[in-house]
C-alpha cells in the first residue's frame, strides 16, 4: 500500500509543473497611474506603474479623452519622459480642461485597464527648482549677513504672468541638524542675519506656484563666513581700559590721603580718660597718689561753704562823716542826710562800696546800739550805704573795680519800711524775719556802681513801701570807675518769698512813716571779702575807718528810708527832714520808747495793691524802726 502512495505522489509531482507552466501566461495585471505633473502649466507628463506581467510581454498604452468629448486620444509621446510615462506637449495640453486618462496593459493573453484619473493641468503644476542660486556674505554696520539670490526655473514663465511663483529657502550650518526655513514670497533675493562667524553655511531654495506643488530643493550652496572680532568686543575692551584708568586714579588719590581716609573709615576708638588720672603714677605703683587725684575737692561740699548756699543779709551803714560818693555827686536838693556812721561793730556799718544797691548815696544811717538814733537823712541821689547783702551763690558778680573782693550781688528786696536805725534794732538778718515775718527783702546787688547822680530825681522822696508779696529789684547801673559798687536792679519780680512791695513812688512826696535817722549818713562800702558770717568791707573813702567788718547779728543799723524808685533806676530815699516837713514820719527812738507812729495816710493811699497790708506793716515796722528799708533775712541763722 505504501508503495502505491509513493508512486502516485511522484507522478503528481512530475506532472503538475508541466501543467502549471502552461498557466503562467495570463493577461497583464492592472496598471496604475501614479502621478501626472506639469512643470510649466503648458505641458504635462503622466507616469504609471505596471501591474503583474502575466508571463508575456506586456505593452502599455495610455488613452485619454477630454471632458465633454468622447474622442479618445492616445498618448502622443511615451518616450520623452521615460519608461511608463506619457508626455503631453503644448499642442496637446489644454488648460482648464479635464483630462480623463486611462492606461491599458496589453499582452498576448489580454489587456487590463487601469482606473481612470481626472487631471486638470492647472492643479498639477510642479515647477523645477530655482536656478542660479548664489550665496554671499556681505558687510553691514550691524555685522555680516548672508545674501541669497536665485532665479526662477527656466521653464516656468513668470515674466508673462502665466505662472506666479513663491519661493522658500532654508539655511543651516554645515554641522547643524536642523534647517532654518524662510519664506521669500515672490522675491528672488533674501538676506539672512545673525550669522556665526567662522562657520560654513548651506543654503537651499525651492518654489511653488500659487496653486500647485512645491518644487524640489535646489542643490546646496555652501558659503563660509569669515572670522572677525565683532565691534562689541572692542567696545568692551575700551570700557575695561577706561575703568582701569579711573581705578588707578582713585587708588592714587586714596593713597595720598591715606590718613584722612583711614580716620574717616576707621575712627579711632577713644580710650578711657579719667581726669586727673595719671597713668604714669599708676605704673610706678603708687596707688595712693593716683587715687588722690581723683578726689574732687569740691565734693562733698564742706560745711564751711554752707553759707554760700544760703542767703544772708548784711546791713551795712556808714558813718555820716564819710563821704558817700567819692565822685562827689551833688547832693540833691533833697538834701543829703548826713548820718553819722559810727564805727562800731554793728553789722552793716562801715564804708559800703558794695554792689548792694542802695538808695542814693546819702547820709549814712547810723545804727548804733545806743538809743540815740538819728534818722538818717534821706538823700536823693545818694543812697545810704546800707546794704543788705543777701549772700547767695546765685548772684556773684565780680566788680570791675574790685580786684580782690568778691562781691556778690543779691537780689534786693526793699522793704518799704525804712526803719530808723536803732541800736536796739538788730537788723541782723536773722532777726528781721522774725519781726517781719511776712516781709522779706532781698536785694540784688549787681556789680555796677550805683549811680547816684543820675539815679534819683531830686525832689522825690524815695519811698519804699513795705508791702507784702511783691518783690522788686532795682537795678542801677553806673560806671564802675568810682568806688561805689552799688548797683541794684530795679525789676519787678513777684516772688513768693518777698513780701515787700517796692513801688516806684516817683512822685510821691509824702514822707513815709519811715524815716531814717537823720543823723545817719549812708555810705557805700565795698565788700572786700566775705568770710563766714562776716562781710569784710572796704572803706570807700579815706576817713580812716579801714575795713570794717560788718557782722551779722549786730543790731543797730542806720537805714535810709526808701521812698520809692524813680524811673526804675533811682532809689529815692526819704529824708528825714522832709519827713519832718511832711510832718509825718515815723520816728522811732529807742530811748524815747516806742511810739506809735502815724503813718501817712497818703502813704497808705499811695500804696499799691497791698495797701492795707502794707499799712499794717508800716505800722509794725514803724514801731520797731523808723523809716528803714528792711531786708528781711530769708535764711535762717547759722
Amino acid at each position: 500500500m505504501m508503495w502505491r502512495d509513493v508512486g502516485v505522489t511522484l507522478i503528481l509531482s512530475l506532472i503538475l509543473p508541466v501543467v502549471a507552466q502552461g498557466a503562467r501566461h495570463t493577461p497583464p495585471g492592472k496598471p496604475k497611474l501614479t502621478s501626472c505633473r506639469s512643470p510649466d502649466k503648458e505641458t504635462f507628463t503622466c507616469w504609471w506603474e505596471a501591474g503583474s506581467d502575466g508571463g508575456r510581454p506586456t505593452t502599455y498604452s495610455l488613452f485619454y479623452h477630454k471632458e465633454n468629448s468622447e474622442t479618445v486620444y492616445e498618448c502622443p509621446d511615451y518616450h520623452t519622459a521615460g519608461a511608463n510615462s506619457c508626455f503631453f506637449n503644448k499642442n496637446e495640453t489644454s488648460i482648464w480642461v479635464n483630462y480623463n486618462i486611462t492606461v491599458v496593459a496589453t499582452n498576448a493573453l489580454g489587456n487590463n485597464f487601469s482606473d481612470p484619473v481626472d487631471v486638470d493641468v492647472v492643479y498639477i503644476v510642479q515647477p523645477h527648482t530655482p536656478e542660479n542660486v548664489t550665496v554671499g556674505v556681505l558687510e553691514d554696520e550691524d555685522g555680516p549677513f548672508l545674501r541669497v539670490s536665485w532665479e526662477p526655473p527656466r521653464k516656468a514663465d513668470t515674466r508673462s504672468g502665466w505662472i506666479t511663483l513663491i519661493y522658500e529657502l532654508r539655511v543651516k550650518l554645515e554641522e547643524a541638524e536642523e534647517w532654518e526655513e524662510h519664506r521669500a514670497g515672490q522675491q528672488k533675493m533674501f538676506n539672512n542675519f545673525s550669522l556665526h562667524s567662522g562657520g560654513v553655511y548651506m543654503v537651499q531654495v525651492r518654489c511653488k506656484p500659487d496653486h500647485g506643488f512645491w518644487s524640489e530643493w535646489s542643490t546646496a550652496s555652501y558659503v563660509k563666513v569669515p572670522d572677525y572680532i565683532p565691534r562689541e568686543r572692542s567696545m568692551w575692551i575700551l570700557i575695561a581700559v577706561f575703568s582701569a584708568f579711573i581705578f588707578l586714579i582713585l587708588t592714587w588719590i586714596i593713597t595720598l590721603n591715606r590718613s584722612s581716609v583711614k580716620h574717616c573709615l576707621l575712627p579711632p576708638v577713644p580710650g578711657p580718660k579719667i581726669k586727673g588720672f595719671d597713668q604714669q603714677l599708676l605704673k610706678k605703683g603708687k596707688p595712693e597718689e593716683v587715687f588722690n587725684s581723683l578726689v574732687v575737692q569740691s565734693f562733698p561740699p564742706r560745711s564751711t561753704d554752707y553759707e554760700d548756699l544760703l542767703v544772708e543779709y548784711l546791713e551795712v551803714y556808714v558813718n555820716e562823716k564819710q563821704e558817700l560818693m567819692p565822685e562827689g555827686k551833688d547832693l540833691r536838693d533833697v538834701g543829703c542826710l548826713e548820718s553819722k556812721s559810727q564805727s562800731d561793730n554793728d553789722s552793716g556799718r562801715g564804708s559800703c562800696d558794695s554792689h548792694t544797691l542802695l538808695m542814693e548815696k546819702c547820709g549814712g544811717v547810723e545804727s548804733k546800739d545806743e538809743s540815740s538814733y538819728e534818722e538818717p537823712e534821706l538823700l536823693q541821689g545818694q543812697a545810704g550805704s546800707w546794704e543788705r547783702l543777701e549772700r547767695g551763690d546765685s548772684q556773684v558778680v565780680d566788680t570791675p573795680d574790685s580786684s580782690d573782693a568778691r562781691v556778690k550781688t543779691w537780689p534786693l528786696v526793699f522793704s518799704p519800711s525804712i526803719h530808723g536805725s536803732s541800736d536796739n534794732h538788730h537788723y541782723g538778718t536773722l532777726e528781721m524775719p522774725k519781726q517781719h515775718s511776712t516781709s522779706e527783702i532781698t536785694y540784688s546787688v549787681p556789680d555796677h556802681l550805683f549811680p547816684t547822680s543820675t539815679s534819683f530825681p531830686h525832689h522825690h522822696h524815695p519811698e519804699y513801701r513795705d508791702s507784702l508779696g511783691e518783690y522788686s529789684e532795682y537795678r542801677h547801673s553806673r560806671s564802675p570807675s568810682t568806688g561805689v559798687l552799688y548797683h541794684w536792679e530795679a525789676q519787678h519780680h513777684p516772688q513768693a518769698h518777698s513780701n515787700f512791695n517796692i513801688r516806684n513812688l516817683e512822685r510821691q512826696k509824702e514822707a513815709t512813716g519811715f524815716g531814717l535817722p537823720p543823723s545817719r549818713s549812708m555810705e557805700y562800702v565795698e565788700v572786700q571779702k566775705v568770710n563766714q558770717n562776716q562781710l569784710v568791707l572796704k572803706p570807700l573813702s579815706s576817713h580812716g575807718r579801714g575795713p570794717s567788718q560788718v557782722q551779722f547779728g549786730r543790731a543797730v543799723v542806720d537805714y535810709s528810708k526808701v521812698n520809692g524808685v524813680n524811673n526804675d533806676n533811682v532809689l529815692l530815699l526819704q529824708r528825714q527832714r522832709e519827713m519832718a516837713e511832711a510832718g509825718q514820719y515815723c520816728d522811732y527812738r529807742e530811748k524815747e520808747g516806742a511810739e506809735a507812729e502815724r503813718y501817712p495816710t497818703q502813704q497808705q493811699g499811695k500804696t499799691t495793691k497791698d495797701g492795707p497790708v502794707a499799712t499794717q506793716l508800716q505800722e509794725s515796722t514803724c514801731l520797731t524802726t523808723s523809716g528803714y528799708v528792711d531786708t528781711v533775712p530769708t535764711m535762717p541763722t547759722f
Partner: protein
Amino acid sequence: MVLLCVELRGSGSASAAPICVHGQAGCHFLSLADLFDRVIQHSARMHSISSDLHSEFEQYVLPSRNHIGRINRHCHTATILTPNGKENAQRLAREELTEVILKLLVAWKDPLWQFHQNMVHQDDFNNFSSNKALEMSYMVHELRKGVEKVADKMQHLGMISNTLSGLSSPEALDPSSDTCGESQAMSDHDLLYCFRRDSNKVQNYLKILKCRIVPENGC
C-alpha cells in the same frame, strides 16, 4: 475694493471719467499698476474661497449624496470662449482679454446668488460654508466693478481701444438669458467645480493682462 477717484457714471456710460487724473490736491491718485494689483488680489481671494468651498463639498456632502458620474458636466459658462493655453491667451488682444474677464464675471453673478439662496435652505452646508458662498457672490460683483474700472482707466490711458464700450451693455454681458436654463440645471457640485475653474481663469487672465500692460513689478 474702492477706486477712490474714479466715478462710475451709470451702467450705460461708455467710460467713467475719473475725478482726479493727474494727482490733484486731496485726491489720492491710483496708478494702473495699483489698480491691477488690487484687482488681482481680489481675484486671488475669490479663487481661494471657491477652492475651499469645493473641497468641503467633496469631503462632506458628496459621499452622502452618492453622487455618481460626472461625465456630462457642463458649466454654463462653456459658451464663453476662453483661451485654454498661454499662447492662446497671449494671442488675444487686450480688449478681448478684458472682455472675456468681464463676461466671466458677469456670468457668475446670478448663479452664485442662487447657490447661496439654496444653501440657506438646505442642510448640506454649515453656516461657515453659507457665509463663504455669500462672500463669493459678493466678491464676484465687486471684482466685476473693479475690472470695469481698470478697463476704463486703460481706455482713458489709451492702452485699449474703445471697442470695449460695448461690454457694459446689458445685452452683451448678460449671459443669464442664454444660460438661464443651464445654470439652474447645474448641481451644486458642478457649480462649485465650474466656479473654481472660472475664478482661476479670471485671475490668470488678469495677471497676463497686467504683465502685458504694466510689467513693472511681479512679472
